[in-house]
């Protein structure tokens, strides 16, 4: 049965970019995000924040979280610095209310920008 619209969780989608030396696997990144948020806010904080990796292609990705805790999620993402011996850092490109918005506004924009800077 569907939830009533007013009773649904209010969500935000965070578009991010990973700066790694090597490719990071999706499973490892997911684990790192939960690890970092868990050590920063504990189990109760994590259950409220409810971060989920929606999509990830090796460089760009989208994370879903609770609307009220976007700043905290951003802090948790900033705390990720190493995964299985590989140094990495996450850079938040933008925050949107829909997956479509996050993809179109932030990730596709970055993909369009890139070939130009490569030619220069």
């Amino acid at each position, binding site marked *: 049965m569907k939830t009533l619209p007013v009773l649904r969780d209010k969500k935000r989608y965070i578009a991010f970019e990973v700066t790694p030396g090597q490719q990071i696997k999706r499973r490892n990144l997911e684990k790192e995000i939960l690890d970092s948020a868990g050590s920063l806010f504990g189990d109760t904080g994590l259950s409220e924040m409810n971060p989920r990796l929606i999509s990830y292609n090796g460089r760009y990705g989208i994370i879903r979280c609770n609307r009220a805790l976007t700043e905290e999620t951003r*802090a948790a993402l900033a705390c990720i610095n190493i995964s299985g011996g590989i140094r990495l850092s996450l850079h938040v490109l933008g925050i949107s209310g829909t997956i479509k918005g996050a993809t179109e506004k932030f990730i596709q924009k970055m993909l369009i920008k890139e070939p130009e800077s490569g030619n220069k």
Partner: protein
Amino acid sequence: MSLFDRNFYDFIVHPSPGDPASITGIAMQAKKYGYAGIALVNTPLPENDTKNIPPDFSIYQAAGISCKPAKLRSEIQKYGNKTDIIIVRGGDELLNRAAVETPGLDILLQPEQFNHVHAKLARDRSITIGFDVGSIIRNRGDSRIRELTTMRRNLIYVRKYDLPAILTANATTCYDLRAPREMAALCGLFGMTQKEAADAMSTAPFEIIRKKTPDYIQNGIEVL
């Protein structure tokens, strides 16, 4: 105008010694994140490598001093005219006291046992209090809790005595840097507001640099 629409600076960057590529790597990454300048601590800028550094990106020289409290005065005077910025990493009460009493110091980074006496002296000499955000990023568990407690404590003094504050990621590689908005989010963990964090990354560092220019005479006085 957005809060994060200005020139940001990160004043404490320790590139790994003997690796000139790391300086350009950090500079490129900082430029991408929206910083307008960085300061290298105890590292001379390699002369043949400046062409890779992006244009309109400024790199300053800083001296990080760590020594016994008794020697602090002579060490600070030694570096006084050589470098742009002088930084002392705070520690126990004695070291903090010696640091805030010495003229010429710019930044007291993450002092642990900071108190109201230090705060008053720091205000009189307009010493900036540094918050080491990098310690939140890199540590886990016990040590991070300690650092957060220290920063929460220091923020109370900064607000009460109206001291200038500065944020730094304390980066050694380009992976340690964080974008200004991320830094502000991390500062939210110990109670700093977004506006305070944005000021600490743009206005406070700019003031330090302005004080070092030859035109500057004294606080509140300017040549017309």
